[in-house]
């Protein structure tokens, strides 16, 4: 479905007024869609079968809120919410959780058999911030990452200036001019603005050309399937008893292989820039902008 223009929206609202008086009552605001209407439009346009059991649901705020602007991000931190507000956005679309867990509930979870946890000042302040400022937060993770081509890989490839190197249009497999792992790592660090989250395995002087771009978290099964076929993997995070040890053993055995980790959230930041661009093709009534969450980690100067 294409986006309705303001005029079409008003006309439909007026024509349907007899059947739906609510629309008439709200006529002055009817031109601007609600958060729920935006999400419905996303569902209709994403071209991925909708899974109601996914994490892609509202995490805070009232879905009937009229949207003045939309911000996309990889992590809806309080800092991101503040920056979104300053930019005039009141609908925040995040690929990561809002309330610090997969459950993403507005109060801390309790472990099975344990007493309910005490009230938490950070949870409480974030809830209060969202309510007081009439923000709406919606998670867009499972369905966004199911799109083809992979928008998170696309975001990283674009940020690295690698659009021209895609293999068969797939941003997850890129052949770049040969360079050392150290040079590649430095390039990734600079262009993705990685701070303390940067971690690399591999001989720094080994030369690499075939790169797999795998944002998010990758299990050992993926690394075992992919790393033998490419020279280096750029990923968000791994488990440290899995892929990093495999990569360490590969490098020790003399293979020219690298594993470059930038952190889960940072690896998804550029993909939410792609999301902002896509949303502009679906929503014409409100401005859309990308608010990068950035690298949460720092490390002291050596």
């Amino acid at each position, binding site marked *: 479905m294409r986006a309705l223009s303001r005029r079409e929206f008003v006309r439909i609202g007026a024509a349907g007024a007899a059947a739906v008086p609510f629309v008439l009552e709200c006529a002055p605001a009817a031109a601007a869609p609600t958060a729920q209407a935006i999400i419905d439009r996303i569902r209709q346009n994403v071209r991925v079968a909708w899974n109601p059991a996914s994490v892609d649901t509202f995490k805070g705020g009232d879905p009937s809120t009229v949207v003045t602007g939309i911000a996309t991000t990889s992590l809806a931190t309080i800092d991101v919410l503040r920056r979104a507000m300053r930019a005039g956005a009141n609908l925040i679309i995040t690929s990561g959780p809002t309330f610090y867990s997969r459950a993403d509930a507005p109060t801390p979870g309790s472990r099975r058999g344990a007493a309910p946890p005490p009230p938490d000042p950070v949870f409480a302040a974030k809830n209060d911030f969202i309510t007081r400022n009439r923000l709406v937060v919606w998670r867009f993770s499972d369905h966004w990452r199911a799109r083809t081509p992979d928008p998170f890989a696309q975001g990283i490839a674009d940020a690295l200036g690698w659009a021209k190197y895609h293999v068969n249009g797939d941003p997850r497999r890129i052949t770049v001019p040969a360079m050392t792992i150290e040079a590649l790592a430095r390039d990734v660090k600079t262009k993705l603005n990685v701070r303390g989250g940067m971690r690399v395995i591999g001989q720094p002087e080994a030369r690499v050309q075939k790169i797999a771009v795998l944002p998010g978290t990758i299990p050992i099964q993926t690394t075992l399937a992919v790393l033998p076929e490419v020279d280096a993997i750029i990923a968000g995070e791994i488990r440290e008893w899995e892929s990093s040890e495999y990569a360490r*053993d590969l490098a020790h055995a003399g293979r020219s292989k690298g594993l470059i980790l930038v952190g889960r959230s940072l690896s998804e930041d550029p993909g939410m820039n792609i999301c902002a661009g896509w949303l502009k093709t679906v929503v014409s009534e409100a401005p859309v902008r990308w608010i990068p969450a950035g690298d949460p980690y720092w490390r002291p100067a050596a």
Partner: protein
Amino acid sequence: MTAGDVVDRIKKNIGVPWRDTTYRDTYKAGGPETPVTGIATTMFNSFDVLQRAVAAGLNMIVPHETTFWNDRDDLTVVNADALFREKRDYLAAHNVVIFRMHDHVHDRRPDFTYVGSARELGLDPARESPPGSHRFTIPETTLEALAVDVQRGLGIRTLRVVGDPKAKVSRIQLGVGYATPAANVPDVDVVISGEQQEVDGFLDGPEYVADAAALRLPRGWIMLGHNVSEEAGMLEMAQWIEKLVPELPVQLIKSGEPFWAPK
């Protein structure tokens, strides 16, 4: 002396009933009948560690962590891989026997990994309160100064920190490996641990501590990396095994921090 003899003494002296249901604390190469020339403890059983142990004349490895890059050391996960076959063939060619010690290290008191980590971090056991809580109070400092001390003291290349560098902190909750305490544990300023998944866990540390910082609540999160956070305790394990098996040489061979970062 055989590996079986060594393992019998470990099981008899570990101080807690042996759990036969463990899939971790089992042989990963060789078996009880393998004759032992010497014993190496380590954190991760990397190819590098194996070669250094063999060069030192030690053919029994007691690692805390995995050999074949998955928690169960399930060979069906890795058996199509060329590097797996190289590692397996190396083990066979040098008659290496591997017996992992993970679950029972964490079951016993004290847990070697906490003892070693506190020692390396310079956390005085006398300031652990209550005893066994892994909670330490240090003289008030800033998160940045603490992070600098930790980075220098442990010689870590890829320390990762979240929180306001200027936050005043003094109450530390120590974790090890993947057993990272929740970032919102009450009456604590800083969690120091090894590793935690960044997003979609039970209580995601990075986002929680970043939000606490945005609210000017003093909170810090210092991740040492899984290897660094538990490897110190493998010295305690080596010393403990040495007493049980005085007939054989026993030493720690460090796998070391796997990561580096570009300048």
